[in-house]
């Protein structure tokens, strides 16, 4: 069994309780305009061009079968439209100018990394977080890793957008020790506008999540001009009030750190230059959420 992984990050402190290893799956079925991990959206391999790291060795020019790399006037030039994403340039680019993201990994190779930090998971009540991209796009692989972790006594958290039919995803969700899911917008049209899909499936799943008896955290990325209205946060908080197994609702401030990745992938970033919300505004929204009578937190 193998799957497509963007990267594995050890000593992850922001992806669930305790000290964790986060496995970033590759491929997502939403297209959130503010995504700060654009390299995880596409399910195949992606090539990043970090031109500032180029040492002008031109090894890529010789390695590339599709002539996407050229030497022009003593400079390296990359033509993404010619690239077939074979990764041969990245294999010879030790300086880190051409970097491939996306690797097919077996469960065994993932676990070989995961188990190295088991003492840290055990003491901190942490574990492994399967994140993305979207974990539900590679359910069988996610299930296999979850089983392998449990066999080693390692807890597993899922970060998911819950955008698949409940009956399809319930077997995986019910195996998780913690579910961390997003509810970005209560208005379905707005949801479609900003993520490319309506929120009906997400809401339906959230209504049924209690039946699995797995603790879950619901989070909203608070994005300026998109999800940060009083009405949206209040409506989400009200929607969550009946949720019995909700550990807490969390407001995540906008993360602006994706810009270098957008540039490296030659992708437009709709939120380039946008700053996170001021702390005071986050506190206002937090207070609003708490007015609904639910446990709520804000990260900044």
């Amino acid at each position, binding site marked *: 069994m193998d799957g497509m992984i963007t990267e*594995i990050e050890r*000593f992850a402190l922001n992806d669930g309780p305790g000290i964790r290893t986060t496995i970033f799956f590759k491929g997502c079925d939403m297209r959130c305009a503010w995504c700060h991990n654009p390299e995880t959206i596409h399910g195949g391999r992606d090539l990043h061009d970090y031109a500032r790291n180029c*040492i002008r*060795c031109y090894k890529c020019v010789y390695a590339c079968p599709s002539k996407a790399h050229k030497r022009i006037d003593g400079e390296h030039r990359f033509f993404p439209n010619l690239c077939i994403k074979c990764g041969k340039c990245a294999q010879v680019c030790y300086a880190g100018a051409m970097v491939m993201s996306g690797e097919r990994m077996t469960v065994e190779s993932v676990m070989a990394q995961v188990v*190295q*930090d088991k003492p*840290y998971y055990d003491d*901190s009540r*942490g574990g492994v977080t399967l994140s993305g991209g979207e974990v539900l796009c590679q359910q069988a692989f996610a299930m296999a890793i979850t089983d392998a972790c449990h066999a080693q006594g390692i807890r597993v958290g899922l970060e998911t957008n819950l955008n698949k039919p409940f009956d399809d995803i319930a077997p995986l969700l019910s195996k998780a020790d913690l579910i961390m899911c997003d509810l970005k917008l209560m208005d379905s049209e707005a949801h479609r506008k900003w993520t490319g899909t309506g929120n009906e499936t997400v809401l339906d799943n959230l209504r049924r999540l209690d039946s699995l008896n797995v603790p879950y955290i619901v989070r909203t990325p608070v994005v300026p001009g998109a999800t940060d209205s009083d009405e949206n946060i209040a409506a989400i908080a009200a929607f969550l009030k009946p949720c019995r197994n909700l550990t807490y609702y969390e407001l995540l401030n906008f993360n602006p750190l994706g810009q*270098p990745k957008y540039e490296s992938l030659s992708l437009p970033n709709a939120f380039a230059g946008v700053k996170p919300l001021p702390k005071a505004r986050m506190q206002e929204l937090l207070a609003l959420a708490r007015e609904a009578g639910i446990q709520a937190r804000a990260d900044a």
Partner: protein
Amino acid sequence: MDHIVMINEFPAEEEFTYDKRIRLLKQRKLAQTKEKIEREGGLDEDDYGRVVAPDAFVFEPDPNHADGSYYGYEGWAHNYAKLLGEHPLYCDPLDAFVGRGFFFMTRRKSSLWNPDHPYTELKAAFDEYNIICGIGSDGHFTPDLRMGFDMGWGGILEKLRKFQQVNTTPENRLFYRSEIQVVEAIIAFLKRVSEEIAGYAERERNPCLRENLKEMSRVNLKIATERPGTLRECIQWMCWFSFFSRLYNRGPSGGQLDELLRPFYERDIAAGLIDDETAKFYIACLFLNDTRYYQLAGPDEDGRDMASPISYLILEAADWINIACNLTVRVHDNMNEDFFRTAVRFLFTNKNGWPRFSGDNSLVNGFMRCGYDQTLARKRLAAGCSWMSIPGMEYTLNDLVKINTAKVFEVAFREMTEQEEEPSTDKLWQRFEKHLTRAVHTTAAGIRFHLDWQDQNEPELICNLLSQGPVETGLDVTKSARYFNMCMDGAGIATVADSFAACEQRIEKEHKLTWKALTRQLELNWNDIDGEYLRQMMLHSERFGGGDSLGDRWAVRVNNLFTNLVREECLRYPGLNFIPGWFSWANTLEFGSRVRATPNGRRNGEAINHGANPTSGFRKDGAVTAMCNSIASVQPFYGNCAPVQLELDPGIAGNEEGVEKMVSMIRTILETGNTLLNINIIDKHKILQAHKDPSKYPDLVVRVTGFTAYFAMLSPEFRQLVVDRVLAVNGDDVA
């Protein structure tokens, strides 16, 4: 005499709280640090609490040797007594204590080794392998301050005179005559101090400060001969011992601070003499006086935690004064969890690199492998940058003996490529083993040589007085200590392991490079055709710290070899217990400057890795856990350290959940085999700004290696090293 005395700086009607005094003392400290930077430039070492000497004070030692320097008992005792007779007094009426130093005698000597005892034969190998041999080095062990508290200077003098009657060889007579001369000079100095302060008290116009000076005078007169009775007398005694030992030869480490102070604190509290606020003020002033290393908490002989109310007060006092401190919390199975959490909170809220954390299980179990019992092993305290010591019971040369294994590697590599037609990592290893064996042999011989002659070079006239053995036998501690646990550190383990790994991966496994091509690139410092490309290729091989990488496997092999070689020296020199460790202290730049380009992509003269840490960029995610697992795998495990140096962003513990994660992280790092954990809490943007203009951040303190220092006081090269380390684990916002 040109004293530094700050009397009548405030109007008579001004009132002072402890808080106000601390604030003013802190301001004074920052101004003194600025003056030190302006006058002395970058100093890549501890702060020591030193101040700049008055311009008019010039000490001229009297030589007793034809080379113009002074050596042995008589030379040192005479000049020390002379210096005490001339040394200006530093007195600040805001402070609880008096006595600050300007320099160490050893730093003012033209020669640190008596030329009557040459070691030319050893020196050739020391130079070849870039070994810091320790011959003529001093002060890196821990005297037992309790002995001083129990006897006072008068009692120490009595003890010397008593044993002077018992031990009567010519060598003994010289020992006692010199030690008595030193102690009499100390007592005379303290009496002079008391008289001077009494005079200042009469002149001070502010009643609050006048009363403080009067009490200061009384305390000093008492402890000139008598044993300290109150907490204030006890800490003043400690301040003076710091001063006396620093003035002599930079001096030793402190000890178990909470347990040293506890009896005095409890007595004073019970008698209603002080409250906690006063005790805290005294302790804060102790930290202002000197940055000596102290341990807090940890197991007593029966394994019970020693944390007590004064342990908390010590942390609060360090936070209050908020300067460079060197406190280590000992983490063990029966840890007081509340105290542990409190210590971690201070680490993240104060952000000045304290406390550090040491791992009791690894240290105790490791030291017991040397043949000691658990009771003794538990007494071996965190005492210096990387080292442990049993107060009053052992002589060690801790942190003073280092073998640059990167240099050993360079010698082995050159020999192999010159002599072998078909080089290989196996053949390289054989030569590395041969040369490391020779380096360790020579280093051990150097340590034996030091012990044989150091008393005729620089006897430990101050530390002898609080050690078990010297006074009783009439011999210097280098000949009379109860235990000789001789530290031998390796430096450059990651540089060596990464070099082996890069050769194995790129030459032998992937065939992307030949030995011949690599050799040529190294000779040309990666400046031949494709040099930078090949350098990047080697640099990005599987490195130490990667997690079950080739580099990790080579590092374990290097550590096992080094550890075994060091331990084998115990058989060659009965009575000496050689203990291996991995630590470079602040020598990473100096060691690197002596090593040409290495196969791990390092250029000529670049720094070697720091301590047992991996080289910068060891993993893309810079995972702390991966790094700590790797360092745990190269612990020699005989009671000395291969420390973890960690740089963390303050936001990592920005709330209680974050603190809990850090508590767990620290505990796990130490439970998985690590011995000592140094942590910097640094905002990477702040450190980058401070690097551009250090003068804008005069109070930024960083833990450089084992010691803390004002960032502004470091040389630009060392500031760059700290910055690189911060970026290595916190990212530099590029791929």
